[in-house]
Structure formats: C-alpha cells, structure tokens
C-alpha cells in the first residue's frame, strides 16, 4: 500500500488503455472514467494506436508467443510515453499485467518477443507498470480524497460489488490487494461515494463470461450469471457495481437474454467510474448509464432525487 508521502510525491500521469468492450460497446464507461479521473486530478494520456489487450480467453488459449507479442506492443507504447498504463477492465488488466510480469522475469520469452517486435521497429524494455483503475484509486488516490470530491452522497443506494476474477486472481501477480477470498479494497471505494456495499451470497463468483466461454457457450455461462442475478434481485439490491466492461456486458446483456426466456430481471449494472460519476454530480445521461441494455427507471429516479436534494442543500 502506498504511504501518504508517496501519494503526494508521485506525478499522477498515466496512459489510458481502453481495450475493446468499453470503447466499442459501453462508451459510457470510457467517458465516465475520463471524467472522474480528471476530477481527481489524475492526468490520463491517450495511448494512441493501442489494440486489443489481447483477449486472454482466445489468445492465451491459442498461442503464448502471439499473446505476449500483442500485449507487449501495448505496453511498449506506454513505455515510450514514460508512463504506467491504466486499464479500466479486468480482462485487460489480467492479460497485460501477466504478460508484463512474464516478460520482466523470463529472458527467453523477452528475447523471443523482442525479435518479433523488432520487425516493426519496437523494443520491449520492461519499465512500465500495468495498473487497474480500482487498485489505482485505492492505493494512489485513496478513499479519503474521493470522499472530499463527492458532491452528491449516494445515501441509501444498496450496492452489490462484483470484483470479477482478474482484478484479484492469481493473487501472486497482484501487489498489496489483501485477501483474494475476502477482499475489501473495492467495497471501501464504493462506500466512499456514500452508497453502501452490502455483502451477499456468491459475491466472489465469476460472472461466467471469461476464458472464451461466453463466445462459445453463451447459454451455459448465463446459468452462472443468473445465480448471482437471482440472489441480487431477491435481496433487493439497487445495482451491481463492477470493474470490468466484459463482466458488465455479461450482466447487462445477460438479463435481456434471460428475460427472453421468461425471466424478469432489471438490475442496473454500473462500472465503478459511473457510480463515482453520479456521486460527483454527473447525471446518469452524462455517464451513458441509460445506454445499457437493461434499464431501470426506479434507480434513475432515486439517483436524480439525491442529486436534486444535494443541489437544494
């Protein structure tokens, strides 16, 4: 965990790695991430020309050298800017983070990858870190700074935090995030908005989408997704808050899919940057929350009422 002096001493400039699902399916997540980080005084620089991380489900399952080469190119772009790279997706964090660690510690793979990169005039050095917006906010910004910036405390919003898998596991690749079985760092950030993260059964379960399972076996993966959705609906949670656009896609589009089969799910799905955006006073519209496939007017009204109340106070 960073100390207070480290937090103050570090220039907070990072390259922003967008990945695929956020910019190309949930642009509201990209926008919200840009807005809240700016408000928190973190400079995000465009990682121009970045590609897919690449998607670990397919690339790590197909060919290790290709996976490492594609991932290393993205890291090299950030190295050239002299900055650490910030992801807003667990999949990207897992893929880029693991590739980066592999290349830092395995000279054989590093040599192999640099041979490929050399063909397009690039070289991997290993001097940029791969970060994730949640662990960055917790370690380098801190919940207290977030609390200071909250203009609309989200009182009375009952949040189901979904950590997702690759934010916390494999834990030997993640620094200082505490227990992988019962982590708290994300819950603390949710509570900093005034909303309340409430524990629930199966909280640490996978969304079902990863590893290429969603693309090949959608119906089976939705059985996993529905386990969580059923618990959350029964326990009357106001929303799911995730840290990964791919989990987001699974929960959001999954409800529509399940409803086609006669179910009735209508749980709002928010990326943490969107929840934070609401607490910073942006309307749901300004954060692209209404662009989700699953919409819920009761949730929107509840948020707008809190924003109205804050304005009057």
């Amino acid at each position, binding site marked *: 965990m960073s100390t207070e002096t480290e937090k103050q001493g570090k220039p907070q400039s990072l390259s922003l790695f*967008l990945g*695929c*699902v956020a*910019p*190309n*399916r949930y*642009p*509201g997540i*990209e*926008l919200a991430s840009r807005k809240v980080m700016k408000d928190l005084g973190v400079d995000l620089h*465009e*990682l*121009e*020309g*970045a*590609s*897919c991380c*690449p*998607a670990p*489900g*397919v*690339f*790590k*399952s*197909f*060919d*290790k*050298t*290709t996976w490492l*080469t*594609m991932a290393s*190119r993205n890291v090299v772009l950030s190295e050239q800017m002299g900055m650490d790279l910030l992801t807003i997706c667990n999949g990207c964090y897992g893929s880029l983070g693991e590739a980066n660690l592999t290349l830092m510690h395995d000279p054989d793979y590093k040599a192999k990858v640099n041979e*490929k*990169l050399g*063909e*397009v005039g*690039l070289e991997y050095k290993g001097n940029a870190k791969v970060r994730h917006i949640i662990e960055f906010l917790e370690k380098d910004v801190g919940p207290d700074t977030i609390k200071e910036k909250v203009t609309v405390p989200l009182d009375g919003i009952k949040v189901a935090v979904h950590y997702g*898998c*690759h934010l916390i*596991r*494999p*834990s030997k690749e993640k620094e200082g995030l505490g227990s992988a*079985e019962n982590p708290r760092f994300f819950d603390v950030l949710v509570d900093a908005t005034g909303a309340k993260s409430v524990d629930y059964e199966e909280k640490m379960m*996978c969304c*079902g*989408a*990863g*590893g*290429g*399972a969603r*693309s*090949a*076996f959608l119906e*089976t*993966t939705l*059985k*996993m997704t529905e*386990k969580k959705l059923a618990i959350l609906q029964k326990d009357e949670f106001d929303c799911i808050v995730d840290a990964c656009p791919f989990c987001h896609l699974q929960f959001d589009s999954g409800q529509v899919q399940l409803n086609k089969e006669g179910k009735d799910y209508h749980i709002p799905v928010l990326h943490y940057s969107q929840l934070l955006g609401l607490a910073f006073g942006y309307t749901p519209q300004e954060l*692209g929350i209404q*662009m989700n496939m699953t919409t819920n007017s009761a949730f929107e009204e509840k948020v707008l009422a809190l924003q109205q109340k804050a304005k009057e106070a």
Partner: protein
Amino acid sequence: MTDPVSSSEIDKSFFNELTREKGMDKILLCFNCNGCSTGCPMKDIESKFDIKKYIRMAGLGMKDRILNDEYLWYCTTCYKCQERCPEGVLNVDTLLRMRTMAVHEGIMLEPHREVAHFVIDTGHAVPINDSNRKKRLELGLTEVPPTVHMYPEAYEQVRKLLKACEFDTLTQKE
C-alpha cells in the same frame, strides 16, 4: 464417471511437451484432494467440466482424450482452483497450455476462430459497429476510439506482428 484408462492412451511425449513450460510439472503433486473442483463455478452448473480430471489426465499423458474434449473449453479462467490448490498446481495455466496444444493440432472452436479473425482484421476482438459509433458521438466522444481504429498505421503494425507470429496461419479457415 470417467472411463477407465487403458495403457494405449498414455503418451509420455505429451506430458514431456506440456511440462516444457515452467511450473507445469507441478501437476504431478496433485494428491486428489478435490479442492479445485469443489470451488469451481463451472463444475457447479456443468458437471462434465472437471478441472481435477484434466490435471490427472495430463499427469498420465492422455493426449487424445484431453485435446479432443470440448469441455476443455468450458473453463472461464476464474483462477479460484489455482489460488486454492494446496500443492501450488497451476491448474488454469496448465489447462490453457493444453488448449494451445489442441489449437496447434488444428482443434479449435469456430466462435474462437472468429474472435481471432476480428483481431486479425481490425486489431480489436470486439470492433466498433454503427450503433456504438452513434453512441460515442452522442456522448461527445470521438466517433471511433483513439486506438488502432483511429490510426491505420498502428493497425498495420498489429497485422504485421500477427503475421510474424504466424497467427494468421494458425487460425486459417478451411
């Protein structure tokens, strides 16, 4: 239940090839405690996917049965089993390596081949589409993100790298 193993199914060269990758030989430390499968969210909904079974079969070198098994592709890579294994077996990493061995023998699922082709053709596994171009503009973002989508020379670099890795040949459609 798993069928009994016949000695003709055992291929030690498969085991040797698998364990050329660092850490994979830990599969031999498995003492059948079943902790991996007990915590597996996929096993819970699809009992035919059993991570312990693959680790045990890998230790024996049961190449054909592993590589041709569609359920090898059901793991969501949640890493719970790997996190919890008391012997430090790299369950998920080993399973992923076995998938790469299947792919290099030409065994892959069509939806995954398609995802690979999205990346070869656009640089993104999930490329932009018309409705999301519109959403981006409505939000005040650029019509396409500042990724390979905006910079053709960057996409060209990605294409060249995939070719250098022979990924295009690997995922070639028949």
